[in-house]
């Protein structure tokens, strides 16, 4: 979830009512699902749910709060003034970055609060849009923009521009790896925006800026239009005026931006059934208006108008949730569902539990290792031949880039982390390993137990293994087991029918040395998946 900083005073001014910090701290999480991260004086920090990018600015948060507390309910109508600003979209952008939305905002007072909020909103929205891939935002000083504009493709080797906050013009191919790149050109053929990378120094905002041009380009048409709506709706909170831009695409002309609401049908009975309450249509309408929706209705059927800046409303169910939030989660009675059924645990759990109890009764302590490990623990230190394992692609830690296919190395590793503790040490684990056969992966349940003490432990481990297997009614045989991880002639394979189901033995001192353990260890691992 992205974070958002805002100033308490600025927030109160925008809402039109004073609140104490404590009051906001108490109320906001219950009405908008945001979370507190902290505060520094009047500077508050919240986490905003991923589905509500419209709350990534103090203006958006204030708008939602104002209607929630009932100061100004219902849908906000955005007045869009006509203009003759003009932009052409060339065919050539279709295959690269086809979508664009644009608006002109006039009468902006760029105070510190406004600038901070606008920069924050642009940054957060852009990271929300996969760092500008789905949508890139350019904000320009309208005075420096010469219309008509052209959204087109240029060769990056033959085009130049001065990127924002620098003083030298450079070729576009110094910024872009592509041979051709979409750009927005002004009437005098200056590049004012290189989408996905930077805007131009020529059109950057200055303290004297009053009017803005905002353009959003990207690969996802819905996101492009919603991102622009969120920006425009935020700036409107600062008492500004929005002007349209005429956009021509081939033969077609339209006025951007589209700030009209979308519409959903909502059945009151559907709401009441899911929520388990009985609200009248009048009450439902009142509650939905507090969430910023516009309502038209006929009996129990509502037509709900969803404001253009909301991108999380996909289905009537999203309106039901907002209805419940406005009603207040705390007001719902808690009802125990009286739906009789017979419970049952996984078929093997009971036996696994008996095995764990038995090992604890032998004086073994249960441990839990991580499924993830590395080449060094699994093979190198064990002097073992490498076998196929599940390998991870993007682990942030080189300690954890393989999935274990045996418990034994991890149990020995855990003993090596307990050298400071008294001996004898007896531990066991019941856990899953991943066995890889080509592209197939089998999840296998294993039992592993080990004893570390001053003399050989072979006999004890053998006795415990034999005792457990006979309790499980497994007709097993033991055979000689050759493995470089164990002392020669002091290891046995456990066989059941034709299959090897486990092994036990005294661990090779060289292996123990690799793990830094200076005391003899005997260990046993049994595949229990097939036995119980």
């Amino acid at each position: 979830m992205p974070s958002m900083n805002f100033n308490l005073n600025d927030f109160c001014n925008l809402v039109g009512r004073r609140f104490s910090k404590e009051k906001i701290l108490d109320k906001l999480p219950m009405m908008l699902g945001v979370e507190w991260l902290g505060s520094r004086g009047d500077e508050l920090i919240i986490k905003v749910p991923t589905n509500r990018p419209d709350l990534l600015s103090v203006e958006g948060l204030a708008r939602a709060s104002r209607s929630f507390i009932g100061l100004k309910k219902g849908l906000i109508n955005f007045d869009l003034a006509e203009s003759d600003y003009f932009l052409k979209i060339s065919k050539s952008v279709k295959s690269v970055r086809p979508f664009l939305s644009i608006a002109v905002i006039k009468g902006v007072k760029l105070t510190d609060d406004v600038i901070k909020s606008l920069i924050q909103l642009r940054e957060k929205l852009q990271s929300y849009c996969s760092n500008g891939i789905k949508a890139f935002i350019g904000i320009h000083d309208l005075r420096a923009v010469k219309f008509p504009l052209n959204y087109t493709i240029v060769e990056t080797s033959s085009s130049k521009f001065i990127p924002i906050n620098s003083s030298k013009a450079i070729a576009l191919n110094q910024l872009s790896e592509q041979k051709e790149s979409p750009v927005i050109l002004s009437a005098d053929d200056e590049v004012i925006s290189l989408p996905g990378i930077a805007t131009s120094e020529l059109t950057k905002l200055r303290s004297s800026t009053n009017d803005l041009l905002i353009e959003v380009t990207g690969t996802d048409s819905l996101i492009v239009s919603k991102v622009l709506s969120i920006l425009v709706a935020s700036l409107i909170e600062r008492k500004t005026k929005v002007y349209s831009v005429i956009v021509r695409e081939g033969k077609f002309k339209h006025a951007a931006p589209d700030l009209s609401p979308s519409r959903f049908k909502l059945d009151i009975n559907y709401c009441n059934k899911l929520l388990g309450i009985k609200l009248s249509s009048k009450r439902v309408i009142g509650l939905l208006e507090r969430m910023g929706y516009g309502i038209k209705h006929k009996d129990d059927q509502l037509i709900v108008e969803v404001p253009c800046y909301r991108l999380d409303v996909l289905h009537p169910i999203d309106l039901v949730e907002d209805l419940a939030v406005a009603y207040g989660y705390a007001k719902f009675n808690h009802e125990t569902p009286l739906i009789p059924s017979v419970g049952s645990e996984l078929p093997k759990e009971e036996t696994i539990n008996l095995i764990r109890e038995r090992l604890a009764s032998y004086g073994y302590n249960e441990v839990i290792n991580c499924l993830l490990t590395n080449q060094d623990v699994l093979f190198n230190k064990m002097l073992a031949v490498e076998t196929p394992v599940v390998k991870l692609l993007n682990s942030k830690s080189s300690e954890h880039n393989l999935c274990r296919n045996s418990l034994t190395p991890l149990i020995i590793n855990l003993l090596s982390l307990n050298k400071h503790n008294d001996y004898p040490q007896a531990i066991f684990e019941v856990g899953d390993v991943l066995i890889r056969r080509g592209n197939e992966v089998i999840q296998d349940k294993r039992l592993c137990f080990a004893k570390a003490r001053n003399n050989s432990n072979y006999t004890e481990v053998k006795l415990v293994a034999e005792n457990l297997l006979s309790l499980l009614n497994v007709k097993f045989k033991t055979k000689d087991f050759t493995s470089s991880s164990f002392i020669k002639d002091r290891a046995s394979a456990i066989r059941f029918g034709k299959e090897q189901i486990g092994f036990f033995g005294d661990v090779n001192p060289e292996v123990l040395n690799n793990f830094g353990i200076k005391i003899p260890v005997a260990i046993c691992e049994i595949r229990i998946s097939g036995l119980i």
Partner: protein
Amino acid sequence: MKPVQPAFHGSKHYANILRDRLKRIFLDMGFIQVSSPMLEISFWNFDALFVPQGHPIRDTSDTFFVKEPAKGLLPDAKLVDRVKKTHESGWTTGSTGFGYNWGAEAARTNLLRTDLTSIIARELSNIKIKELPLKIFSIDYVFRNTINNRLIQSQSVTGLMADEKINFKHLLGLLNNLFNKLGFSETRFRPSYFPYTELSVKPEFFNKSSKEWVSLGGAGILRPEVVKPLTGSEVPVLAWGLDFERILADIYNIKDLSEAYSTDINFVSSFNPFSKRL
């Protein structure tokens, strides 16, 4: 917590003692325990749960992707097609969908499950509406690719209840019963967001020593865009995924969550299992 007695006595792991307790609570309430693979395809972990491909939540989930074997097999083609259509245009769920081209190849990507919600998707795809109610739970490991103080391997307590007669109040009632049994005296339910639930709820408890509300995980009613492609119907499904380690830390008084699974044998065997909350 003071050591009961160092070494020599055998013991079950304190985390597994809590796991057993949670299991008993769900069995008492008539739930069936289920399991699913740790190595999962994106389809069950994300796509079937209506998380769009390329959605920020997929990046922020700290997913461990698998290099070898990199791809797995998709389930039944009809199911895959329903999920595809739901993502693209809402299919017959009444949703608008996300309006992008859903790719089958990306859904085959192998990963370590980031949540047990993959179990919910798998189980729903198997039920027959005539066999309702469905009440299942699972307590098992999930994996997050992180180097911060979070655990890379943690446990989730997940479950669902599907029946024609249930509603939001039952979800709150069920969670409330569960938290009462675990000895949480002061809890609250807050609005929240998860891609697969709507209504979404964040259950929290009041930690008396830190004087803070602490999250216990997430819950909600599954979205129609999740339920209908998987089951063919729009039955209400209550679902939850609780953070096992938060419960563990509160019961055993563990201050640092990253210490929830200690590797110190003396520490592990020193916990007192004779707690009223276990």
